[in-house]
């Protein structure tokens, strides 16, 4: 309405300098015809400025009068716009997680236990559930912040969000990363259960010209794309991925060799608690122990320690039993610790060297040696040698060595995914000797995130006693949170 724009222009300049435009409002008498009666009692007329005709009014008052009429007329006369409709999102036959589960996901995204996001997503994927649609924008934003390095989280979000997330990501350039995940990355192994057509996987995402031919990503891609290719291959044909790594090893840079090892260790599917390493990988890893690059050989040592029955595990077990022994005393059994004399080449080859973790810890060398050895020793070593259950072993007195053993066992239990040990260690921290050092606190915090969440349910760990250390209270809170979280997702499963 140009009449309105004329009024706006006049008001911007000011009626001192601009004429008040003549205003026509449909169905309304012309402005001149309103006369002073239309503004009875206006100060402009009381002040004697006004004559008998409308022309001698205060022009500012006249302009405001007309603007008020036009404003209301324009608001009331508002008509509808036109829209360009969007294509609808593809269907997702999976049931949606319940309101309670969705609300917890939203809480996690708002910062309540944010590190449990991946667990929620993995648990939902394992149950064939999709995330509630209204949470998707926050999920996609979370991944944008996480950056490309966290491709695991992106895969999980793509899986939980399904077709709706891919549709939504197509509307916002900030979420382009979702379309950039290769189809295999975007859907992951658990996708088999979604019943989607393969053609729907990248709806609106990829330009035809961008498409890689099979193998192009490996031959031509950067390290991220090579990783994506290798991970997809590993998920489908683990042996072929291993062969490809072995064939490419010599020509690869150190950072790529580390990437190879990490792909081997990655869980093959989004379903948790399935280790990625398999016994057939041991030969490759054992060879990598002789790698010149510190990172590569450190990773190889770490991974071999998590592989059940590995030769490295046996070597560590022998070292551990030379250093830690059980003794019978008048007040029950206790542990004695004799640290090894120092580093030797074999120890260094197995990934424990003075430099390897020097930056991470301020522990005295003998202490650190014991810690590293215990952390890499197969946990059944202790039960077999001491003829005791884990819960009894962790309760044995060991004097000043107790924090070192607690931390080492905790790391081993997490790396080896040993639920019995994790439960024993948590119970010891809650009901036995409370953790005292910062590395113990950190270990307990990790245990609470990895242990069976049933520990947070009824009949699990006892409630926090008044006066327990904050680390213990936090661990119990995390266990409870995880228990409730998984229960909500399970409830949905049975309902849906």
């Amino acid at each position, binding site marked *: 309405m140009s009449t*309105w*724009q004329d*009024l*706006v222009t006049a*008001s*911007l*300049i*000011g*009626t*001192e*300098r*601009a004429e008040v435009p003549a205003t026509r409002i449909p169905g309304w008498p012309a402005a001149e015809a309103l006369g002073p009666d239309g*503004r*009875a*009692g*206006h*100060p*402009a007329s009381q002040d004697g400025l006004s004559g008998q005709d409308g022309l001698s009014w*205060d*022009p*500012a*008052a006249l*302009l*405001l*009068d007309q*603007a*008020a009429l*036009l*404003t*209301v007329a324009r*608001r*009331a*006369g*508002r*008509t*509808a*716009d*036109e*829209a*360009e*409709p*969007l*294509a*609808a*999102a593809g269907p997702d036959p999976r049931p*949606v997680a319940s*309101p309670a589960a969705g609300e917890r996901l939203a809480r996690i995204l708002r910062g309540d236990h944010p590190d449990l996001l991946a667990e929620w997503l993995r648990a939902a994927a394992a149950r064939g559930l999709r995330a*509630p*649609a*209204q*949470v*998707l*924008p926050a999920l996609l934003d979370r991944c944008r912040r996480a950056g490309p390095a966290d491709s695991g989280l992106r895969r999980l979000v793509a899986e939980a969000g399904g077709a*709706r997330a891919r*549709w*939504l990501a197509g*509307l*916002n350039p900030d979420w382009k990363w979702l379309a950039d995940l290769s189809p295999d990355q975007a859907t992951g192994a658990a996708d088999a259960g979604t019943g989607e057509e393969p053609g729907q996987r990248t709806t609106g995402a990829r330009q035809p010209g961008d498409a890689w031919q099979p193998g192009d990503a490996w031959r031509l891609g950067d390290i991220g794309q090579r990783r994506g290719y290798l991970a997809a291959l590993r998920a489908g044909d683990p042996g072929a991925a291993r062969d490809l790594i072995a064939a490419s090893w010599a020509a690869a840079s150190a950072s790529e060799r580390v990437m190879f090892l990490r792909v081997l260790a990655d869980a093959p599917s989004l379903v948790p608690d399935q280790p990625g390493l398999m016994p057939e990988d041991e030969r490759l890893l054992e060879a990598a122990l002789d790698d010149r690059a510190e990172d590569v050989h450190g990773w190889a040592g770490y991974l071999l320690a998590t592989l059940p029955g590995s030769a490295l595990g046996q070597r560590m077990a022998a070292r551990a039993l030379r250093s830690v022994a059980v003794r019978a005393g008048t007040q029950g059994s206790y542990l004695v610790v004799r640290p090894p004399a120092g580093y030797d080449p074999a120890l260094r080859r197995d990934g424990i060297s003075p430099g390897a973790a020097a930056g991470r810890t301020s522990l005295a060398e003998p202490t650190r040696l014991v810690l590293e050895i215990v952390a890499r020793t197969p946990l059944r070593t202790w039960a077999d040698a001491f003829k005791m259950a884990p819960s009894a072993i962790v309760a044995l007195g060991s004097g000043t060595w107790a924090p070192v053993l607690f931390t080492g066992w905790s790391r081993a239990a997490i790396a080896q995914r040993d639920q019995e040990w994790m439960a024993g260690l948590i119970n010891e921290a809650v009901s036995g000797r409370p953790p005292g050092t910062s590395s113990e606190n950190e270990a307990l915090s990790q245990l609470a995130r990895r242990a069976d969440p049933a520990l947070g349910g009824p009949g699990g760990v006892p409630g926090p006693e008044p006066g327990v250390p904050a680390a213990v209270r936090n661990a119990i809170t995390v266990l409870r949170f995880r228990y409730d979280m998984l229960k909500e997702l399970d409830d949905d499963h049975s309902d849906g």
Partner: protein
Amino acid sequence: MLALAPDVPSQRAAQKLASPGSWPLTGARAGADASAAVAADAGGGTGPPAALWGECRGSAAVPYRTAIDLSGPAWQCSCPSRKFPCKHALALLLLWADGAVAAGSDPPAWAATWLAARAAKASRAARNPDAGAGDPEAARTGPANPEAALRRAAQREQRVASGVAELDRWLCDQVRQGLASSQQAGYRHWDDIAARMVDAQAPGLAERLRALAAVPYSGAGWDGRLLAEYALLCLLTIAYRRQAQLPPPLRDTVRSRIGFTVRQADVLAGGQPVKDRWSVLARRDLEQERLRSRRVWLRGRESGRYALVLSFAPAGMSLDDSLTVGSCVDAELVFYPVAVPLRALVGTRHGEAPQGPPPGGTVAELLAGWAAALAADPWLDSWPAVLTGTPARAPRPCLYDAAGHALPLHPGAGPCWPLFAVSGGTPLTVAGEWTPRGLWPLTAWDDGGRAVPL
């Protein structure tokens, strides 16, 4: 506190009862002076006196219900004691004095009824409907001295009239000198005139003026929006001067927008309760300086009538949670008597049940309702919307209905990604506020029929 006790045994009994364990339910309400300005802006006013209430576990199976009007003070208790005040009322006062009674909630129905009846009696005694909570002096002494209250009301009327005249001159000055400099003016420009309106006891005008400080920075078209707001303020000053000639509902609208408040008790006493099953459509929380306010939109399943329930709390305190979005409340509402009655108080509640999406309308229906409402109240700046529609991104973010009629989404609502996520490009029911700048979506119903706050 104990000096109020009728005798020494009452004091001892009260001290024994004054432990939180004996009181499964307690609550307190502060006086409403702080909320008056915002209440007025939203088209009405509240003036509940400070009050306490609680349920005390006693020897009987049913707990004793105790309510205290702190402005009296006056008490009411369901116990059979003939002492006055009884030990329950004293104990409740002691608990309150110890800080063991949480403030900020609405009284339960039994306490609200009694408090409302008291307030109504007090205002009848004052015989002065305009002596609202915005004038605390009148509220305190009004009942005792009706002539003084009348005099004060006349004084206030004079102050408002001179404030309105000053505002009128100020508005004309703005337009005379030109709005172009407004972008360099800074907040003080509007705060100064707003402060003068506060002095003139016209808090509604002050609130509107303060909100204008943001307009020059609101993006393209700010000049038109500023002129529109100045023009509507000018219209309000004209309407105030001519209030004697206006029909009563429009006069009440004008006065409430200027900042004259109406006591809740007067609304409850004077209005006809509207019984219906009210769908709780949407909720919007605003935070201003030291006050939080909550707007809850309702719609009657049978009458199709819209209602707006406001509640207030000091910053940091929780707001009234009694109306859950997506549920349906069987209740009697009493509307404020204005030209477009939207604002209402919840009277008696009979029940509540979860419920699927409300029936969604078309864009044409919404715009027709909006036009009719504007005809009755030109200062209306938001209107309840329930639409069946689909969101789209182009040519700008909007919601369109089955006929292809689209309404823009309010720029202040952000990109509205959750609305798009829930829709997935297919139609859904959306509730929100329609404003001159666009639709502010607040609730969407997903394909499972669940209400999703946006």
